[in-house]
């Protein structure tokens, strides 16, 4: 069976909330019903049919042909066993609260991607905006499970209040990577700027490029970590470069001692 297809008709004139177009919510719906779904966020009416040409297919796999940085909440609360692929860009809160499944984005993603995600896999081919995996206003923790791989660069505060799960950034990371992280793992293969792991409680940050981590990261020396080698093998499928980084001898900085001091930053010697 062919995948469910949403082909973009025109550039959107407002932001759209695509949280109602996840595969599990399309099961058993007719084309007409889907075209009538309201995806507007302003007083100007906007239905799925105005924006997309819809082709009903296998709802396990949903394809978007053409994206926009105004498509918010794509793949929100996605359930295990479903897949979404976007041939283009997406907006804010990609995969917000996703519980499983896979999301692949060929282009860029906006702010707050993977926010509140608890499971599943997100692959972003291009760049990603600020606050990757971060909590929304007023929430206690951010991403709490699953795996995100960003092929390009990410904005500020990636991995903010990370609770569990894995973030791999193959490009450069913006300021304040891994701030307030509670636990989980962040691997950054490009450059980093600003404070790294500020207020980090128990998370592991693996950086390809070292730097100055401030007075609250204590040098613990360089080691061959058994777990890092094991982890390296597990990462081979997700990111070869991340896998290679973890197979090396790594210098460990323990911190942030300003909070618990049970987190760490690992960089190659």
């Amino acid at each position, binding site marked *: 069976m062919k995948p469910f297809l949403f082909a973009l008709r025109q550039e959107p004139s407002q*932001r759209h909330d695509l949280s109602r177009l996840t595969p599990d919510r399309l099961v058993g719906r007719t084309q007409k019903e889907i075209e009538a779904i309201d995806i507007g966020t*302003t007083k100007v009416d906007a239905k799925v049919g105005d924006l997309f040409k819809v082709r009903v297919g296998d709802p396990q796999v949903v394809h978007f042909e053409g994206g926009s940085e105004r498509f918010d909440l794509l793949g929100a609360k996605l359930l295990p066993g479903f897949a979404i692929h976007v041939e283009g860009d997406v907006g804010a809160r990609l995969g917000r609260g996703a519980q499983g499944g896979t999301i692949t984005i060929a282009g860029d993603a906006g702010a707050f991607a993977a926010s509140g995600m608890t499971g599943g896999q997100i692959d972003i081919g291009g760049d990603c905006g600020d*606050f990757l995996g971060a909590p929304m206003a007023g929430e206690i923790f951010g991403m709490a499970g699953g795996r995100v791989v960003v092929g390009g660069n990410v904005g500020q505060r990636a991995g903010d209040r990370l609770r569990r799960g894995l973030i791999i950034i193959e490009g450069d990371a913006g300021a304040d990577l891994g701030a307030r992280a509670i636990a989980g793992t962040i691997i950054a293969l490009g450059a980093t700027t600003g404070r790294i792991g500020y207020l980090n409680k128990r998370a592991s940050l693996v950086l390809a490029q070292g730097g100055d981590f401030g007075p*609250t990261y204590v040098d613990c020396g360089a080691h061959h970590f058994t777990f890092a080698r094991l982890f390296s093998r597990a990462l081979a499928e997700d990111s070869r470069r991340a896998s290679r980084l973890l197979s090396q001898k790594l210098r460990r900085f323990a911190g942030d001692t300003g*909070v618990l001091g049970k987190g760490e930053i690992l960089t190659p010697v």
Partner: protein
Amino acid sequence: MSKATLDGAPIAIEDAYQHAAKILGGAKFPVVAGLATDAAGARAAILLAERLRGAYDHLASDQIFNDLDVTRSFGMFITTPAEARARADVVLLVGPGLTEHWPALFERLALGEPARFNDAAPRKILWLGPKRNEAKVEGVEIETIAATPQALPGLLLAIRARVGGRPITLNGAAAKKIDAYAATLKAARFGAVVWSASAIDGLTVEALQGLVTDLNANTRFTGVPIGARGGASGVVQVGGWMTGFPPRTGFGRGYPEHDPWRFDARRLVDSGEADAALWISAHGGEAPAWTRDDVPLITLAPAGAGAARGLYIEVGRPGETHDAVELAQETSSFVLRRATAPSEAPSVAEVIHAISARFSEDVPC
């Protein structure tokens, strides 16, 4: 009489109200931004945003969220300046420019005098990262640690680490000073930290409040925040009681949605998502931060701050040209400020009511 201009050329005030109503009433997603006004002005502006199904934002939102995000995702110990003045035997000032953000800081907190409930023992004043010469105050002895804005967040965490007895990488004189600070803070009977979210960022505020939390395990410690410019703390309260949310809230779907990223007025205008803007800056006549200049703009600002582009309507300064209710830094409560130099210039609330009265019938109420 109020003055108005359109693209710099004077127009009659009646025409200005009519024109403003036409711009806002015809917009698909207008943004009410700036919002630097008194309680009545904020009320009228938020009501207008709701009626137009637009969004509202404040010009100091970034500073507002430096504090508010900590309050809502971490927790915050705060007290009134009066309580700190009466009880604090140790006061830790954090960041540069505090006396610019609150000129009455030393006088209101009586930092040169002993706390009322501390047996006349002198207050200990610490200042982490003041500006050059800022910590030289006559009659007040201040122990300072110099810190650039870049180094300050790290040093603050170093103090917190030493309060908890955890290791840091500083050594020598720097480590000694950090240890001395930690010892003073731990020995406090009732300590207070004072900071301005206009001088340090949200992560640093969270680190500071974490320090206060740690200290509260063994003594009493609290904080006195210095509010942001443009009546920010008052506008946050007004937004709270009207919609349940602070600025950066939108009504696009007919109900209030709060999203600090999506409803950032600068982003809304620059991205073209907002197709009209009402800019309110009644205190200082600040200009908007966005760069785009093809979005219809209505500016409400005091005399002398006229906008060369778009529609400009002169308003009075709250508490100066007209009586105004504002959240006062010195009392942490709403107060009535009597006009010091009354004038005919209308308040923001009056101008918005005049514009709202001219909407065509099809704009829903």
